[in-house]
């Protein structure tokens, strides 16, 4: 419940419903009766953060523990931020309205690099010192997790401890340890030292880094008994893993305003640019029965009439048709529609199409990622042009008339011909439409071609690759534009400036913390939003700090170099990534996990797809 001072500001800002809490299913506890208060912070707006599944899972899980009260905190939009500063109102949590400085834990989920400044800004708005070293007491422990925690170094000075991998177990273990440490009167330093012994916990202050003269890392040494390698945590049995039967139902419309049902974690494919495809290995599925009952409970408890099946590649769910049969046995009656995002080009069959069509016809989106076959082999996309055309023909015959195609430019080994093939592929889809005999009568086709700029990410076979410079990316964008002749094709591209900053942060090291701190002092926020982002201002900061951003973004790294994230273990070995990188140079594809095991290293967890029977093999 927000206070009177806040209420007085609410009518001056856009969408005040974002700042008041009070939603159906939000958890209210008596703060005098809980031992531990956790402020779960999403470093972006309410609409974005409330759409995030990981937060929903952990919010429900934490609150299922009697002694913990977990509340939600989002970044206020710029108008609200201004009012809060003007009136001296610190950043508060939505459930209690209490400032985040009242909380034992302040946790951030790091979903994308461009939200780092929001994270620091939120601490600042909450009146919490941004640097870990300046928070000396055993309170306001700042923790972070999520995919960007796989390279924690650019924010290492600010975070007390990182959760590496999936949080369902390790987060609770750390909170339990905190409770014990506080009861025993231990110091923050002692608590951090002890927590470093929990698997999946990384305490950056317990490591010393030295650099070579050329700027690369010379050594990375643990101290005070911290482990040399930090292993990720993961949930082995998805059917037994916690899943909420209830979501907080927002009062205002959010980005993904529907129930979300996770169907599996990980991805069998191994597309070489995709970080998620490697860090969440191995693939672990939920059974159709589990999904079906969780899904039904969720719809009943929230009142949502739409449920989205969530995974990295829904058509790769091994029992997709039986699952859809189970779900459609009640969704029609209960007037619930199912949406199936993240469909692969080769996974859109008649059978799936008919099942989706019975409920709701949404737009179709496919991600061929590259225009030419050679390029798709380099990135291991394993999709052929004829497959895409067959899929589109199926969709067109089924009445669809709009298709969105996602591509990347700036991929390793890419030539201008590969880039032009993006436009050609779009044209081929248009041609396919007019060749499809039973297409929608009297309607025109619309093909949207979107090109984002490739950002090399840690824990992928391309982690050593340079990113194309901004001028080269601009040239490639222009080349696609020039190669499109049809008016049926709409071309969008992603701003290269933001991709450049993303590349700097993604593979940065601890020396970037200085720049982050300065950015925070200067009030940077919402770097992921075009209205706030300025590369120019960032370049000024890098310059003042003596940092060369090209060193991180545009430099080809040697296979022997110590990478800033080498001390973190996600199961996939460096030698496997190196082998995959070399195969990419030779345009060699690698079969997916269900066809053949390629020995990535994830089998060591003893679960998931690595131990499935491969029916396709003779």
């Amino acid at each position, binding site marked *: *419940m927000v206070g009177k001072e806040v209420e007085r500001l609410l*009518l001056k800002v856009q969408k005040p419903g974002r700042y008041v809490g009070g939603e*159906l299913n939000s958890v209210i506890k008596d703060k005098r009766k809980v031992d531990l208060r956790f402020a779960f912070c999403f470093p972006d707006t309410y609409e974005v953060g409330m759409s995030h599944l990981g937060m929903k899972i952990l919010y429900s899980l934490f609150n299922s523990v009697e002694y913990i009260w977990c509340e939600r905190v989002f970044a206020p939009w710029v108008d609200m931020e201004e009012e809060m500063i003007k009136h001296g109102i610190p950043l508060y949590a939505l459930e209690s309205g209490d400032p985040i400085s009242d909380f034992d834990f302040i946790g951030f989920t790091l979903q994308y690099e461009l939200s780092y400044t929001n994270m620091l800004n939120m601490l600042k708005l909450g009146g919490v010192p941004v640097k870990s070293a300046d928070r000396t007491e055993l309170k306001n422990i700042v923790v972070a997790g999520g995919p960007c925690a796989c390279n924690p170094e650019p924010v290492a000075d600010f975070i007390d401890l990182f959760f590496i991998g999936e949080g369902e177990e390790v987060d609770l273990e750390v909170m339990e340890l905190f409770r014990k440490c506080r009861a025993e009167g231990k110091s923050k330093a002692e608590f951090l030292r002890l927590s470093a012994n929990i698997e999946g916990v990384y305490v950056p202050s317990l490591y010393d880094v030295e650099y070579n003269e050329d700027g690369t890392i010379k050594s990375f040494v643990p101290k005070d008994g911290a482990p040399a390698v930090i292993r990720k945590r993961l949930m082995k049995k998805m059917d037994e893993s916690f899943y909420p039967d209830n979501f907080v*139902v927002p*009062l*205002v419309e959010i980005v993904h*305003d529907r129930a979300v049902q996770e169907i599996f974690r990980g991805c069998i494919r191994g597309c070489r640019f995709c970080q998620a495809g490697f860090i969440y290995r191995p693939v672990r599925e939920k059974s159709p029965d589990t999904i079906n009952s969780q899904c039904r409970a969720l719809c009943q408890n929230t009142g*949502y*009439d739409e449920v989205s099946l969530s995974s990295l590649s829904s058509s790769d769910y091994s029992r997709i048709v039986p699952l859809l049969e189970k779900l459609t046995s009640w969704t029609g009656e209960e007037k619930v529609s199912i949406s199936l995002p993240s469909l692969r080009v080769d996974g859109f069959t008649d059978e799936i199409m008919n099942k989706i069509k019975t409920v709701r016809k949404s737009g179709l989106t496919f991600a061929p990622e590259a225009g030419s076959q050679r390029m798709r082999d380099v990135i291991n996309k394993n999709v052929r042009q004829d497959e895409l055309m067959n899929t589109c023909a199926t969709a067109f015959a089924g009445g669809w008339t709009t298709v969105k195609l996602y591509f990347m430019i700036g991929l390793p080994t890419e030539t201008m011909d590969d880039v032009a093939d993006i436009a050609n592929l779009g044209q081929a889809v248009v041609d396919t439409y007019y060749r499809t005999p039973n297409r929608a009568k009297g309607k025109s086709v619309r093909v949207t071609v979107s090109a984002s700029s490739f950002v090399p990410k840690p824990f992928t076979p391309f982690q050593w690759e340079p990113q194309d410079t901004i001028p080269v990316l601009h040239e490639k964008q222009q080349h696609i534009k020039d190669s499109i002749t049809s008016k049926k094709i709409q071309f969008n591209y992603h701003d290269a400036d933001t991709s450049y900053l993303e590349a700097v942060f993604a593979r940065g090291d601890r020396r970037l913390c200085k720049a982050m701190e300065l950015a925070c002092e200067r009030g940077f926020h919402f770097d992921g939003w075009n209205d706030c982002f300025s590369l120019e201002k960032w370049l000024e900061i890098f310059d003042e700090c003596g940092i060369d951003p090209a060193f991180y973004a545009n430099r080809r790294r040697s296979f022997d170099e110590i990478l800033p994230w080498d001390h973190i273990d996600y199961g996939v070995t460096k030698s496997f990534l190196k082998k995959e990188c070399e195969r990419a140079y030779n345009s060699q594809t690698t079969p997916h996990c269900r066809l053949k095991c390629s020995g990535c290293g994830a089998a060591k967890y003893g679960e998931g797809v690595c131990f499935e029977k491969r029916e396709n093999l003779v």
Partner: protein
Amino acid sequence: MKNVRIWFKKDYECRYISHLDLNRTMLRALHKSRIPIWHTEGFNPHPFATFPLPLSLGFRGVNECMDVKLEQDDYSFEEIISKLNECLPRGIRVFDVTEAVMKAGKVAYASFTVRLSDPNTPSKTICLQLEELLSQPSIELQKKSKKGIKTVDIKPGIREYSVKENFDDAQLDIMLSAGSSNNVNPSLIIDALRNAAGVEYYADITRNDLFNSDMEPFR
């Protein structure tokens, strides 16, 4: 099939949601409650609900209503109240269900309580400013519409009113014309006051009741 009118209060956190968001919240609650409501029969069937008079974002509503079609004529009204309240956020409370006596289009007036305050202005001053403004023969305002800016006189839309000085605010109770034509939003009075006094007061606005053209309570 029976037309019923569901009466509710919109307050606390839910004061800050727009009419569109209220609509979405209500539809979701109706869906969750499983009350046998008539659904639209299009491609995406959803419960059908209409609101006789939308409430502006930021206003409290103590006697708000929404019309639905009940598929079971004998379905208990008490059941609707209790089931819906279980499915709604705490800021929206259903307190009555009645038959829809008057047609939605019959709404002609609405009564409001407006409480104005400012840390640097005594309530008495605000009261005097209000009295002065409202006693003018006409109150003209620039109103933005799709066709551009036009000047409107809101005075004809003001029926009776009273101004009262409270300990920490100035209270205006006012009856304004409402409905699809000649609707006067009380925020226009705040705007006019700002134009006249040069101060933006904090306004806590509550809509109390709706009336038909004969000044009978809307039922």
